[in-house]
C-alpha cells in the first residue's frame, strides 16, 4: 500500500496531491504539465517535496513533520522512464544485473536469465541497448526495474514512444507482472484508453491537483469537473442550468439551444433546480435522426472526416446566435447516410448518455 500526500511549489507551479495505491495498477491521467512526473520523482526520492508524507507498506519514506526523507537508494522503488534510460555502455545482462545485490555471481546470472525469459527476450542478454529495438529496450528497462524486487513500481509514460502493436503487447505483459508480483504499480499516461485498460482505478491530475480519483467506470460516466470530462473524451460540453428535477429525470436549459434537454441520471443528490451545470456527451453517443422530437437539435454540418470504422463530423447548432456551439460526432458508417457538408440535419442526444456536473 503506497500512500501519498504531498505539497511542493516550484516557481509559479504548485503540486498538492493525495492518493493511495493498494496492490493494483493505479493510472495517473493528466495533460502535460499537470505534475504527474513530478509526483513520481517525489515518490521515488529523486525530488524532495515541501511538506506532507509518503508511506509504503507502513514504512515512512518521507514525512516533513518527523523530518524523515529516505534517499532514492533506500526506498526500494522501481522506476521505468519514458526514454528507457538504459545504461548505454552496459550489455542487456549487465543492465538488468545492475540493481541486484547480495547474491553470488551464479545466482545473479540465473535471476537475469529468468527475467529475460519473463520479458520474452531470452537471447538478447549480450547485446548493447543501441543494438535492440525500442520495444525490446523497454522490456529490458522493465526487467531492470523489477530485478531488485522493488516494493513498488513507478512507470512514467513508458510506452508512449512505441508503435501500437508493441505497446499493446507490453500492456498485457505489465498486467501479467502486476498479477504475479502483487505490488503497487503507478502508471502515468496521458492516454485514457491505456489507463482504462491497465487499471481498475484512475487518478486524474489537473494543474498540480487530483481532479478526481476513483473507479475507472465512474470517472468515465460521472466526471465531477470540466477537466476530467474533457480528458476522458467528453468533447461536447454545454453550459446551462437545471430547470426541473423529477426522480431520475433532470431537465437542463442551455440558453443557446431552443428547448431544455432531458437527462436520465440516478446520481444527482448534489444537484438542485436553478443550479448552473455542465452537461456533456461523448462523440460516439450522438445520433443522427430524421424526425424531430425530445433531445433533438437542428444543426448544420460543418465538416465530415472519414475514419476507419466511423465518420467524424463537426456540426453547429442553427439556433445558436451569440455563442457558436460546435458538436463533434462519431457516426457509424451505415448510420451516416443522409448528410453532407453544408446541409442541415437533426442530432439526437440520448438522455441516458448525457452526463451532468456542477459548474
Amino acid at each position: 500500500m503506497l500512500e501519498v500526500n504531498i505539497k511542493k511549489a516550484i516557481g509559479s507551479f504548485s503540486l498538492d496531491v493525495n492518493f493511495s495505491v493498494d496492490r493494483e495498477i493505479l493510472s495517473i491521467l493528466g495533460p502535460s504539465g499537470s505534475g504527474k512526473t513530478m509526483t513520481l520523482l517525489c515518490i521515488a526520492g529523486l525530488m524532495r517535496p515541501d511538506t506532507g508524507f509518503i508511506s509504503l507498506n507502513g514504512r515512512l519514506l518521507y514525512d516533513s513533520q518527523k523530518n524523515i526523507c529516505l534517499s532514492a537508494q533506500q526506498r526500494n522503488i522501481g522506476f521505468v522512464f519514458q526514454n528507457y534510460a538504459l545504461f548505454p555502455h552496459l550489455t542487456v545482462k549487465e543492465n538488468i544485473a545492475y540493481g541486484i545485490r547480495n547474491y553470488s555471481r551464479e545466482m545473479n546470472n540465473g535471476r537475469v536469465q529468468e527475467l529475460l525469459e519473463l520479458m520474452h527476450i531470452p537471447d538478447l542478454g549480450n547485446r548493447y541497448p543501441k543494438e535492440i529495438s525500442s520495444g525490446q529496450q523497454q522490456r529490458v528497462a522493465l526487467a531492470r526495474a523489477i530485478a531488485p524486487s522493488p516494493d513498488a513500481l513507478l512507470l512514467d509514460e513508458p510506452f508512449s514512444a512505441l508503435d501500437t502493436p508493441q505497446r499493446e503487447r507490453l500492456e498485457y505483459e505489465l498486467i501479467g507482472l502486476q498479477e504475479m508480483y502483487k505490488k503497487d504499480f503507478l502508471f502515468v499516461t496521458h492516454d485514457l484508453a491505456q489507463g482504462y485498460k491497465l487499471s481498475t482505478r484512475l487518478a486524474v491530475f489537473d494543474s498540480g491537483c487530483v481532479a478526481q480519483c476513483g473507479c475507472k467506470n465512474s470517472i468515465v460516466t460521472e466526471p465531477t469537473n470540466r477537466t476530467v470530462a474533457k480528458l476522458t473524451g467528453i468533447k461536447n460540453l454545454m453550459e446551462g442550468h437545471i430547470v426541473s428535477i423529477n426522480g431520475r429525470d433532470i431537465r437542463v436549459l442551455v440558453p443557446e439551444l431552443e428547448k431544455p434537454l432531458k437527462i436520465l441520471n440516478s446520481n444527482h443528490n448534489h444537484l438542485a433546480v436553478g443550479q448552473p451545470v455542465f452537461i456533456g456527451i461523448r462523440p460516439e453517443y450522438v445520433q443522427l435522426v430524421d424526425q424531430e422530437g425530445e433531445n433533438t437539435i437542428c444543426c448544420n454540418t460543418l465538416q465530415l472526416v472519414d475514419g476507419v470504422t466511423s465518420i467524424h463530423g463537426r456540426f453547429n447548432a442553427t439556433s445558436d446566435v451569440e455563442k457558436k456551439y460546435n458538436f463533434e460526432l462519431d457516426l457509424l458508417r451505415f448510420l451516416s447516410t443522409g448528410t453532407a457538408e453544408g446541409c442541415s440535419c437533426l442530432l439526437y442526444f440520448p438522455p441516458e448518455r448525457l452526463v451532468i456536473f456542477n459548474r
Partner: protein
Amino acid sequence: MTESYLSPLWISLQTVLTTTFITFFLGIAAARWMARYSGRYRNLIDGLFILPIVLPPTVVGFGLLVLFGKNGPLGALLSLFDTSIVFSWPATVIAAVIMSFPLMYMTSRGGFEQVDINIENAARTLGASEWKIFWTVTMPLAWPAIVSATILAFARSLGEFGATLMLAGNIPGKTTTIPVAIYFNIQSGNMDQAMVLVVIVLAISFASLAALAYWKGKARRTVPITPEAL
C-alpha cells in the same frame, strides 16, 4: 654539455606529468560538481574557474607572484614553514596547473552535462550509491570528453610560458622549462639549441594529437570501459 643541453626537456616532462595528474583530478572534481550545481553563484564560480584562460598569462603570473610573494597571504603562510614557492620547481607546476585547469574543467564539464540525468536517476532507484554511480555510470559515459580534456590540459601545460616565467623565473637546471629555454636561447643567439627544443616540442605535440585521434577512432568502434569489477 649534453646534460644541461637537454635539462629543459626533463624539467618540462616532470612538470607536465605532475601538472596533468593534479589538473586531471581537480578539473574532474570541479566539473562534476558544477555540472549538477544550480545555486545562485553558478555563473560567478564558473567565471572564476575559466578566468585563467581569459586573462593574459603574464597577468595570471603577476597575480600568483603577489599571492605567493613574501608579503602575499600564501607566501607569508609558507614562510612560517621556512619554504618559499617563488622561483622554485613547484612554481612551474603551480603556474601550469592554474593555466591548464580551465581546459580540463570546461571540456569534462561538457562531458558530464551530456550524461542524461535520468540514467543516473535510474541507477539511484536501483539502489546504487552515489560513488558507485559516479564510477560505473557517469565516468564511463563522460569518458570521451575526459580523455580529450586530459590531452588538451597536457598540451596546454607543455606550452605554458608567461605565468611560469613570472612565478618560477629562468633558473637553468631548476625552473627552465622548454618554452622558457627556447625563448632565452633565441635571446642569446643559440639558434641550434632552440631548434632542437622546438623539434622536441613539435614531436610531443604531434604525438598527443595522434593519440587523441587514435583514441577517438577506437572509441567510436567499441564501448569505453566495462565496470565489471564494481
